[in-house]
């Protein structure tokens, strides 16, 4: 069964005389009970897409169904079926963490007792009990984001739509969020749609991922199957201590293929080529300039780039 079914979704943003197509004929099916990710760089149209799905924006063209209900005709329905975590937390910024979570639960229709019980449970689950009485604006950025995630989890909706839930979190908090999402999917069949531009997050928690670039879905499948598309390649990363010698043929060969960020080079190639390149580098004159190197199997970032993704601001950590 599908939770969200999106067809031909197009939304243009108008700013003065210019029109930007934020979402361009997007088709998407989100199977119920999955953790579904939307991966893409900044400006790919991810937030516009989830805001359309939540009924916060009206599409210029296309249809959106949520559990069989027409969201375009009834934009108030997602607020009842789904909990949404947006990027701004200004509405909650001066509230103590516990109050923010509890009052959000009350606004989702929980009784006072139920809201308090769920508040305590979710704060404990996310490790926020210690800052429960402090205002969101007075705790660290990571804890603040985590508290906002807590407000989305309270009131157990069958659908969670989360816009970058783990941005700014330390690895431990990030894992706590991932575990909380998985638990809700496994125990209550909750469907999760989350936006990320973090490759590790996409590979670790998502059952399925749609890759967005310039407002279009360029791929949609399980992370494993997407990676199989580029399975034959490996990624060789080189970090130079100083500029490598230009006259070294190996350096010239790799330099022509590499994408560069300062003295950090990334080259995608077959395993045989990588082995050969490393052998030449480590035995040749360029070795003196080499600071570090690593060889990695393909990630979703490689998939993204091989599919024609253009921007390069996906996170890896």
């Amino acid at each position, binding site marked *: 069964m599908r939770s969200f079914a999106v067809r031909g979704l197009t939304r243009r943003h108008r700013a003065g005389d210019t029109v930007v197509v934020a979402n361009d004929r997007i088709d998407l099916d989100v199977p119920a009970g999955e953790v579904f990710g939307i991966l893409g760089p900044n400006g790919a149209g991810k937030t516009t897409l989830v805001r359309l799905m939540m009924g916060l924006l009206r599409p210029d063209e296309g249809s959106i169904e949520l559990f069989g209900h027409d969201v375009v005709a009834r934009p108030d329905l997602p607020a009842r079926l789904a909990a949404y975590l947006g990027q*701004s937390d200004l509405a909650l910024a001066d*509230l103590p963490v516990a109050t923010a979570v509890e009052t959000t639960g009350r606004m989702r229709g929980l009784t006072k007792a139920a809201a308090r019980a769920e508040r305590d449970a979710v704060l404990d689950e996310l490790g926020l009990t210690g800052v429960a009485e402090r205002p969101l604006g007075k705790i660290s950025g990571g804890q603040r984001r985590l508290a906002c995630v807590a407000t989305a989890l309270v009131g157990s*909706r069958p659908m969670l739509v989360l816009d970058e839930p783990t941005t700014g979190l330390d690895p431990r908090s990030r894992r706590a969020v991932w575990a909380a999402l998985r638990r809700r999917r496994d125990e209550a069949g909750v469907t999760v749609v989350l936006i990320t531009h973090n490759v590790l997050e996409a590979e670790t928690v998502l059952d399925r991922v749609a890759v967005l670039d310039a407002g279009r879905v360029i791929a949609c499948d399980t992370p494993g199957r997407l990676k199989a598309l580029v399975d034959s390649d490996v990624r060789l990363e080189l970090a130079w201590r100083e500029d490598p010698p230009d006259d070294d043929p190996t350096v010239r060969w790799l330099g022509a293929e590499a994408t560069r960020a300062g003295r950090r080079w990334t080259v995608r190639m077959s395993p045989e080529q990588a082995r050969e390149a490393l052998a030449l580098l480590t035995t040749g004159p360029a070795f003196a300039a080499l600071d570090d190197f690593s060889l990695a199997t393909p990630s979703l970032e490689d998939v993204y780039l091989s599919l024609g993704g253009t921007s390069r601001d996906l996170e890896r950590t």
Partner: protein
Amino acid sequence: MTVAPVVPGGIPAAGGPQASPLGPADRVGTPGAATAAGAVGGGTVPVVPVMPGRTPFLAAFAAVYRGQLSRGKVARMPLMFVATLQSVGILLLLRGVVSVSDVTTCAQVVAGCTVLVVAFVALNLLAQRFGALRAAGALDYYLTLPVPGTAVVLGTAASYATFAVPGVVVTAVTGALLFDLPLSGLWVLAPVALLAGGSLAGIGAAAGLLAPRPELATIAGQLGMSIVLFLGIIPSDRLPGVGWLVRDVLPSSYAVDALTETFLPSVRWGIVALDLGVCALVAVVTLAAAAGALRRAGTA
């Protein structure tokens, strides 16, 4: 966990007891239930989640009010101090100008200064607050909760108003003492503050929500407050023609008139009731407009 019976394909069965277009829970109003695919009728069929109900107005209002109240302690106390000081300062200033024997003028000055405290909160602070929420994209928080827009506007306004109460009382009592006015009718402060607050809060919230930039929301709020200040405090019989016109369309004028009446030696309660009725009517209209503006601003 509640499992809603469905037909294969994930659409709730039409007709019979499940005929609600929104799924079974729309009528029973069970919030928070989620379902996974499960076995129904011996075979595994897809199951749609029940539709959680809308949160009733009062519960939503109480939740918004409580949340806003908790943030106000830090953020708003200094502002309330300023609002009160401003009104008391104007009272002291006018005490040196206005003759105490002119009871009608004195009554209007005190009433105008009192309503000014309400306007400071309802127009100025609310316009700023909603303008800032809109600019930050933070209205999404409220718009993705199953609560009525009026509960959000009213809950926020009410929490701000709560902080205005001490200022309103202090201004009215100080004014009455300074200008030798009777304190017996001061109970009218409660409905005056409530209804003037409601009508001005609706305007303030709508201005904040509709202003394309937060600075414009701030300007609109402050401009509104200045108009309330001048037209409320300047005795109405000394206003030029156009001033009268503006005064008549300003909801706070009716609150000022009602309060002025209660300071007079012989109170015409019919006039008080009529003025408050106008405030109530305007409050309903402007708050409804603000609730409409909330959705419009959030989805623009």
